[in-house]
């Protein structure tokens, strides 16, 4: 297959799966198998893309054959291809995980079409080389997430969605204004072309407004302090399958956009913002972890931990050394797997006991030791215990911080690591070790419950083993992260690939 075809395939597969799932809504069995198969095909396509990109460097293709910078470029460097692969992996895992809710009737036929449209938005955001196109992919992702969030119509969901929707629409307006001002000033929206034009310091002089607007827009999507309030207000309200995919992917798209901005098209503006980003990262880590400490429901605790972990990734970005960026990239990958898995496990707990509130839980270690193992691995990886994946991610970011002599921020990062562990042991002690409280008896297990658990346990077990594998054999993966980071820090190859790429209609 041609390179252009390979790039467009990443978008065609989810789009086609969503369409077919919509057509096949009459038969649940057919729709569910198509929904899962589509996700599997997307994973295979993403793996093929990553292999190709890692050997060539950068792949670029022009949509509709319009040469850059006039048309829309679809482009994949190592970071983008890696993100596409890991998102496709989460897509497949969540598709399997959701089968349980779909069969129970807790989710209906709308789920799979929307889910694949959400993945389409995510993959599009990773692959686009055009700022306005990025805005459009963000909207595709947002609109799908709005509806997914409200599937079920419970009062808490509507309330969570209200906060999520309002704040995200404001961020979209800011993004649009920022992009519009860039076009007004530079006459281009192609990211590579913007980067070329901004190498001239005179051109860069009047772009502070756009820079700050885009920082606010991307920062809100990423869940940075002080813009994260929509996240812990909404992520614990929908069905677990929906929570898990949100937790795994959506904020990371914001982090990715920040990385793209400050290594490519706003690289010239980065020096002005470095100090701000460092302190925003520190504040994000601290507020997230303290928010988690204040909560006593599994999914609420986990939601706040998303915020705190985003701080580490942005810290890596803000340090902007090869090691720090590689650490941030490694962190992104590790975090997507671990966080999705923690939501999976939280969902299994809610499924077995009917609640995620720690005061009503207990005795899970005795009744379901396998579940304790499934929780233990991602939880202690999140806390940064060696030899699990989180340890290497934290180690890289913190080592880079020490090398850059950012003492204050680095010590905050270390402290937050300890507090993360505290939160995880809180869940462990309350839900798994403590005796089941006498006034909250677990619901009786229905007949055939074991078999019904398979779609819930399988993705979680696979992700848990991935966490161990990344931890034990992290060398090649970290080497890949270093290659991706080197590519980000020297965007010349990316720029040349985009501006040179020939037209290639799908």
């Amino acid at each position: 297959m041609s390179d252009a075809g390979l790039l467009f395939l990443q978008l065609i597969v989810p789009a086609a799966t969503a369409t077919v799932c919509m057509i096949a809504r009459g038969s649940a069995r057919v729709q569910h198998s198509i929904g899962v198969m589509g996700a599997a095909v997307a994973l295979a396509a993403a793996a093929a893309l990553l292999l190709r990109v890692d050997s060539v460097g950068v792949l670029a293709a022009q949509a509709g054959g319009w040469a850059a910078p006039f048309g829309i470029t679809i482009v994949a460097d190592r970071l983008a291809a890696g993100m596409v692969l890991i998102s496709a992996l989460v897509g497949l895992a969540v598709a399997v995980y959701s089968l349980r809710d779909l069969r129970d009737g807790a989710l209906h036929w709308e789920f799979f079409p929307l889910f694949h449209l959400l993945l389409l938005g995510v993959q599009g955001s990773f692959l686009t080389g055009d700022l306005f196109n990025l805005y459009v992919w963000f909207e595709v992702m947002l609109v799908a997430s709005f509806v997914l969030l409200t599937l079920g119509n419970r009062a808490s969901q509507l309330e969570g969605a209200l906060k999520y929707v309002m704040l995200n629409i404001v961020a979209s307006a800011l993004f649009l204004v920022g992009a519009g001002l860039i076009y007004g000033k530079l006459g281009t929206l192609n990211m590579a072309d913007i980067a070329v034009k901004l190498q001239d310091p005179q051109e860069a002089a009047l772009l502070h407004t756009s820079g700050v607007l885009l920082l606010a827009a991307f920062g809100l999507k990423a869940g940075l302090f002080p813009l994260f309030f929509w996240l812990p207000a909404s992520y614990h309200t929908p069905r677990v399958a929906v929570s898990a995919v949100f937790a795994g992917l959506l904020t990371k798209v914001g982090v990715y956009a920040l990385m793209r901005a400050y290594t490519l098209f706003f690289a010239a503006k980065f020096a002005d913002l470095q100090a701000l980003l460092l302190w925003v990262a520190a504040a994000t880590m601290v507020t997230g972890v303290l928010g988690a400490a204040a909560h006593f429901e599994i999914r609420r605790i986990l939601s706040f931990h998303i915020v705190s972990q985003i701080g580490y990734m942005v810290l890596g970005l803000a340090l902007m050394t090869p090691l720090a960026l590689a650490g941030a990239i490694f962190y992104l990958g590790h975090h997507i797997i671990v966080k999705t898995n923690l939501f999976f496990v939280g969902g299994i707990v809610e499924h077995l006991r009917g609640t995620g509130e720690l005061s009503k839980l207990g005795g899970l270690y005795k009744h379901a030791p396998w579940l304790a193992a499934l929780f233990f691995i991602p939880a202690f990886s999140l806390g940064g215990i060696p030899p699990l994946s989180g340890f290497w991610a934290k180690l890289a970011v913190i080592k880079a911080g020490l090398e850059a002599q950012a003492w204050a921020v680095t010590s905050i990062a270390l402290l937050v690591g300890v507090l993360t562990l505290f939160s995880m042991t809180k869940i462990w002690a309350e839900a798994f070790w403590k005796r089941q409280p006498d006034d909250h008896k677990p619901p009786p297990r229905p007949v055939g419950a074991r078999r019904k658990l398979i779609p819930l346990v399988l993705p979680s077990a696979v992700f848990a083993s991935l966490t161990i594998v990344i931890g034990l054999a992290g060398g090649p993966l970290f080497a890949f992260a270093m290659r991706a980071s080197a590519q980000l820090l020297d965007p010349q190859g990316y720029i040349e690939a985009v501006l040179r790429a020939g037209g290639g209609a799908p």
Partner: protein
Amino acid sequence: MNLVLALTIAVLFASGIYCLMRRCLMRLVVGLILLGQGANLLVFAAAGLTAGQPALVAEGASAPPPGAADPLPQALVLTAIVIGFGLTVFSLTLLNRARKASGTDDVDAFNRTDAV
């Protein structure tokens, strides 16, 4: 003309943000609409206004005449308007459902998903 547009944009943004800060749910949506329109108009105006020079390629020529208006911002704004329309309809529906589910349209009553 630029000044008139700039003032309109300023008024749209200011009133949009004012509405977003009110406690009534309905005002939230009005605020979002105003903010969205302000953003659209700003994108339209930021790329420069050219009056009476449509970017039409004359017969036989291969490029629009020099000094023609840039059609791209208009295409961008058109996309943004369509997206904004969808978002507005969705937020109206959501607001209606949320109001029915909670029985109030005071934003201060929506504090359960944040409560510790």
